[in-house]
C-alpha cells in the first residue's frame, strides 16, 4: 500500500496499464513533456516513450476523432481534454462517432478508449475551467461515464475503464485532485463500472452524490450526526449505467432521498437519479425526492463561487429539512 492523492492514483493506473499493454497510448494537449497541466501524466512520457505518451496539436475534435481511429484499429488510446469546458469542441466526434461506432458496425469495430476530463468547480479558475458536463455524456447512448471520489476508486475505476472494450468518459473531480490522500494498493486492481458504493450506512435519509460533492456531504454528515440524523451516503461512482439496485435498496429503507450535484439543475443529473427513485421506490417515499444542485446559471468566476458551490451547511440544511418533512 502507498499513500496517494487522486492525481497519483490516476497516474499510477495509467502507468500500470502502459507497462502491461503495448497497445495503450496516452495523448492530448501538454500531456507529454509537461505531464499535463495538472501533472496527471507526469513521468509517463519519460518512462514509456514519446510514441506512447505525447502532445497533440491544440484541437479537441481531432484528439477525440483520431482516438476513435486508433481504437477501431487495434490501439487503446487514453486521451485527455485539458478542462471540462474544452471538451465541447469534441462533442460531435464523441456523440456522433465514439458513442456509436460499435452499434453502427454491429460490433465489427470496437471503441476501447478512455476520455479523461478534469471537471468541476471550486478551484478559483477562469471561465470554462469549472464545468460539470456529466449530464451531456450521461444522456448520450453508447458511452459509459465514470466519476471517482477517492484515490482508491480512481485507480480501480480507471483500470476498469481502460480495460473496457467500450468508450468510457472518465471525469476527474479536479477540486480534490490533491485534497484527499488514501492508502492505495500498488498492484493492479479493478472496480466494476456501474456499481455505486455505500460510504456510510444510515437510517433516516439517503444522500446520493459523486465526485467532489461526496466530501462536502461527508462534512454535512458531521453536522447531521450532531443532531442525531443518520445518513446513508451513496457514492454513485458511475453516471451511466446507473446502479439502480443500490439506490432502490437504500431509499426503500430510508424513505427519504437527497441528490447533491454541482451541475446546473434543469435537465441535470439529479433529475435522472430522482426519477429512478420514483420508478424503484415510490411506495417507500416519506418525503419528496429532493435535489440540491448548481443554479441554472453559468458557474460564476471565483468571487461568485461562494454562492454557487454547494457547502456542507447548505447540504445539511436540506438534509434536516427533509428529515423533518
Amino acid at each position, binding site marked *: 500500500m502507498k499513500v496517494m492523492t487522486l492525481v497519483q492514483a490516476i497516474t499510477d493506473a495509467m502507468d500500470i496499464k502502459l507497462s502491461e499493454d503495448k497497445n495503450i497510448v496516452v495523448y492530448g494537449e501538454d500531456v507529454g513533456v509537461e505531464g499535463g497541466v495538472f501533472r496527471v501524466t507526469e513521468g509517463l512520457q519519460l518512462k514509456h516513450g514519446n510514441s506512447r505518451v505525447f502532445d497533440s496539436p491544440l484541437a479537441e475534435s481531432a484528439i477525440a476523432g483520431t482516438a476513435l481511429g486508433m481504437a477501431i*484499429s487495434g490501439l487503446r488510446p487514453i486521451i485527455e481534454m485539458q478542462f471540462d469546458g474544452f471538451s465541447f469542441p469534441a462533442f460531435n466526434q464523441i456523440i456522433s462517432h465514439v458513442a456509436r461506432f460499435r*452499434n453502427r458496425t454491429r460490433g465489427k469495430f470496437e471503441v476501447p478508449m478512455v476520455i479523461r476530463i478534469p471537471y468541476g468547480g471550486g478551484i478559483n479558475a477562469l471561465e470554462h475551467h469549472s464545468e460539470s458536463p456529466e449530464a451531456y455524456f450521461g444522456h448520450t447512448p453508447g458511452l459509459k461515464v465514470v466519476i471517482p471520489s477517492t484515490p482508491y476508486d480512481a485507480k480501480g475505476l480507471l483500470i476498469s475503464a481502460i480495460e473496457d472494450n467500450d468508450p468510457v468518459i472518465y471525469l476527474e473531480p479536479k477540486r480534490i485532485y490533491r485534497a484527499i490522500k488514501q492508502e492505495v494498493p500498488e498492484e493492479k486492481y479493478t472496480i466494476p463500472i456501474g456499481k455505486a458504493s455505500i460510504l456510510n450506512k444510515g437510517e433516516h435519509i439517503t444522500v446520493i452524490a459523486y465526485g467532489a460533492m461526496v466530501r462536502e456531504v461527508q462534512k454535512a454528515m458531521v453536522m447531521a450526526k450532531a443532531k442525531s440524523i443518520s445518513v446513508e451516503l451513496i457514492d454513485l461512482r458511475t453516471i451511466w449505467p446507473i446502479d439502480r439496485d443500490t439506490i432502490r435498496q437504500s431509499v426503500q429503507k430510508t424513505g427519504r432521498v437527497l441528490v447533491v450535484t454541482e451541475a446546473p439543475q434543469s435537465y441535470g443529473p439529479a433529475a435522472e437519479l430522482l426519477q429512478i427513485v420514483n420508478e424503484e421506490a415510490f411506495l417507500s417515499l416519506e418525503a419528496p425526492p429532493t435535489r440540491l444542485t448548481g443554479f441554472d446559471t453559468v458557474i460564476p468566476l471565483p468571487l461568485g463561487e461562494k454562492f454557487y458551490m454547494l457547502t456542507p451547511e447548505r447540504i445539511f440544511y436540506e438534509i434536516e429539512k427533509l428529515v423533518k418533512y
Partner: protein
Amino acid sequence: MFNLKTLDKFKPIDDKTYQVIDNDGKVIIKDWIPDLKDEEIVQAYKDLLFERTADFMAVSYQRQGRMFTYPPNLGQEAIHIASGKVIQPEDWLVPAFRELGAWLAKGVSLWEIFLYFKGHEDGSKFLNAKRMLPISVPIASQLLHAVGIGYAMKYQGEKAVAFAYVGDGGTSEGDFHEALNFAAVWDVPVVFVVQNNRFAISVPLKMQTRSLNLAVKGVAYDVKSIAVDGNDFFAMHDVLSFAREFVLKENKPFLIEAKTYRQGAHTTSDDPTRYRTKDEEDEWALKDPLKRLQSYLISKKLWDPSEDEKLIAQYKKKIDSEFEKAEAYPEYKLDDVFDYMYENLPDELKRQKNNYQNYLNHVGGVK
C-alpha cells in the same frame, strides 16, 4: 510514370490540374504509357460500367419505394474505380458516402449497400471487406478517423495506407483542417481524396471557398498535394498509385483534389434543377468519365461498344439478385436495436428491452 517531377510540374499554387486523356479519350501527355495492362484497363471500364449500372438501379429502387434516400455516384465513378485498383487489401478505406465503386472493390457486397439504404444497420457490417469503415454521414468527421488509423499503423510498424474521402463541401468543416494538420504533424500514411464535384447539395464551389483550387489547401499543412481531373481514369490511377507509394516511402500524408461533377442529384430527395443550369450540366456531360475511358479503349481497339448493352443486361440481373438478397434479409428484430450498443448489454438496457418485450407480449407484437 507519374513521379516526383510530374508532381512538381503540377503545382496547385499554379492552378495546374493533372490530366492524361481529353474529353475524347485522346492521350494528351506525350510519352505517357499506362501503368496498367490492356486487360486491366478493360476491366476498369467494366467496373465503371458496373458501378454506373448499380447506381442507376439503386435510384430506381428508391423511386419504386423499395429503398430510402440514396446518394447517386453518377459522373464520379472514375475516381472510385481508380481507387479500387490502387487500394490494397492491407490498406484502409475511410469513406464519406459517395464512393460506391471503391467500396465494391474493397469487398463490400452490393446487397449490403442496398440493405443499408433500406434502413438496416447490418448493411454496414461489410462481411467480406477488411479495413473498410462504414459510411460517414457527419461531413468531414471521418478524416480524423483515418489519421488515427494512420497513427496506429505507423505505431504498429505496418506498411499500409489509409485512403480517406471527403467532398468539396467537406473542406469547409473544421475537422478537415484538424485532420490535415494532425496527419502532417504526426507523419502518418494517409491519402486524402477530395471529390470536388462542385456542389455541396445546392451550394456551389464559389460559395464554399475562395481558394484557387482545393489541392492548394495542402500548403497550410505542408502536405504535398495535386489537383487531378477526376473524370480521367488514367490521371486518377496515376496519381493515386503515386500517392500510395509516396505516403509509404515518406511516411507523410498526401492530398488529392479530384475535379469532377455530380451529374445526378445530391440524393434521391434532391432536385438539382433548383440550383444549376442545364448548360452547365451539358458541358460536364462532355467530360463524362465512362465515355472518355470508352473512347480511349475504342481508339486502341480494345473495346467494341456494342458489348455494352449485353454487359449492362448481365449486370442488371446480378444487381437485381443482390437487391433481392437485401429484400430477403431477415426481419429487423428488437435485438438489433439493443444488442450492439455495448460489448455486454448493461443492466439498464436489459431492463428497457425487457419492459418493451413485455409490452409487445401484452399487445401481441409491433403494429
